[in-house]
């Protein structure tokens, strides 16, 4: 679970770092200006991360709590 928590903390840095480091409209990502494309990608990455966190969390093996 320690690993899962670190993994879940990643987007807190991921979302913010892109616009801070590269606040330029180009290169476009997926047809969007860089900061918007960056944020969009991190929404998807976050979903994948939460899926991994969910799968390795032992609490999700039993449905009731």
């Amino acid at each position, binding site marked *: 679970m320690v690993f899962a928590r670190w993994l879940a903390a990643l987007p807190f840095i991921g979302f913010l770092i892109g616009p*801070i480091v590269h606040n330029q409209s180009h290169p476009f990502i997926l*047809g969007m*200006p860089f900061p918007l494309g960056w944020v969009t990608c991190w929404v998807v990455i*976050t979903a994948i991360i*939460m899926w991994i966190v969910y799968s390795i969390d032992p*609490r*999700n093996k039993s449905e009731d*709590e």
Partner: protein
Amino acid sequence: MNGALLVIILAAAVALGLGLMARRGHDMGLEQWTVAGRGFGWLFVFLLLAGEIYTTFTFLGASGFSYGLGAPVYYILAYGTLAYIISYFLLPPVWSYAKKHHLVSQPDFFVYKYNSRSLGALVSIVDLVALIPYLVLQLTGLGIIVDAAGYGAISKDVAIWAGALIVIVYVMVSGIRGSAWTAVVKDILILLVVLWLGLYLPTHLYGGVGAMFEKIDAAKPGFLIFPAKGMSVWWFASTVLLTALGFFMWPQSIAAAYTAKNAGVFRRNAIFLPLYQLILLFVFFVGFAAVLAVPGLKGGDTNLALFKLATQQFSPLTVGIIGAAGVFTALVPGSVITMTAATVLSKNLIVAMKPDISDDQTALIAKWSVPVIMLIAVYFTLSGNQTIVSLLLMGYSFVTQLFPVLVASLMKRNPVSTPAAMAGIVVGVLVAAYLTFTHASVGGLMPWLPQMIQDFNVGIIALIANVVVLVVVSAITRPAAESQEA
């Protein structure tokens, strides 16, 4: 009567009908009415928790924000996603504790954890001061939507009264079940409308999303990136973090979490809720599409960007369908807010003063608080009071002040004492209020700081003051009673 109007009236009727039908087969005692007997599966919980993203503020505000300010709007997409990560860890323990103690409102949680009705009353007051402007915003939005989509055939005042009555009736009858059922229609409608508008408009007007952004970038250089000062990347970073903390402190979000039938629901939803947020992207596209297509909107009129563009491009029937989606984005969150405010007012303020009142009597008082809350909101909406705008800005920073106290209470040994919790919240709220009313900024208060820190969201100051008071007062008073373990 034009086609648009017909569709909008039909939508209102469907909302009312569904809201009333939702009651069937359920006896509306307090726990049923407020939290659906804690029996909702993932879909209803998902829709209630996601409901926060699609209010009139999103529909009109996010497109207007994109249109008026450009890049800073990107923050909306980021903070919600981070808030859902927090929900994975935060909501299961909150839910378990609420189930164990039969809690029905967010102030209840503080009452039990800190063994203090006074803290519950304080949190309730903070909640109501935050919730009523939020409800006013939904009603104002409803008026604008019906006026714009109905081509002015129904006046704003009539729309606001009609919306208020519909919400009063179905909330009194069906409670949270009414909101959950109407949320299904709302989300399907908004999903279709927003996806279609967000793809059609850029393609039709510019030849594609990429082409649209290229044209905007050429016409207005710097509009699609964060400015160097003010709403800079540092404003973005601090605002995203601050609002992510506040997201689940809203009393209606906590109450929505209580409706789940097990804690696993939150962990599963934390995977899909971020993706659901991507719908907002298409709302942004509409706002950006309007930048070059309907230029010249200023101030509050930027909120009309979506409808100005829609009425320019589409037939009345299509505008009516967009309007219908808009009506749902006002009524559904409006109903959840009204019910939450009514529960908080009745259970944690009125009944808290007379503890010998039964649950059935509490339920009755809560149901009759619904019209009271709604009429207050209608009054503020129609009077067009400007203070309400400041209150709305404050609402988010107000509820954010509850975060440290709530998180501390989830620890094995709560380091925060009850007097410290009260002092921290009071100081945080007062600082937030002062900063909002004086339109302060970090740079204005401390111009000697580096530019990067000057651009930080000013709400951070209130939160820091809150935590400092929490730590200091906890050090000199006894920690909260240990009897209320999780």
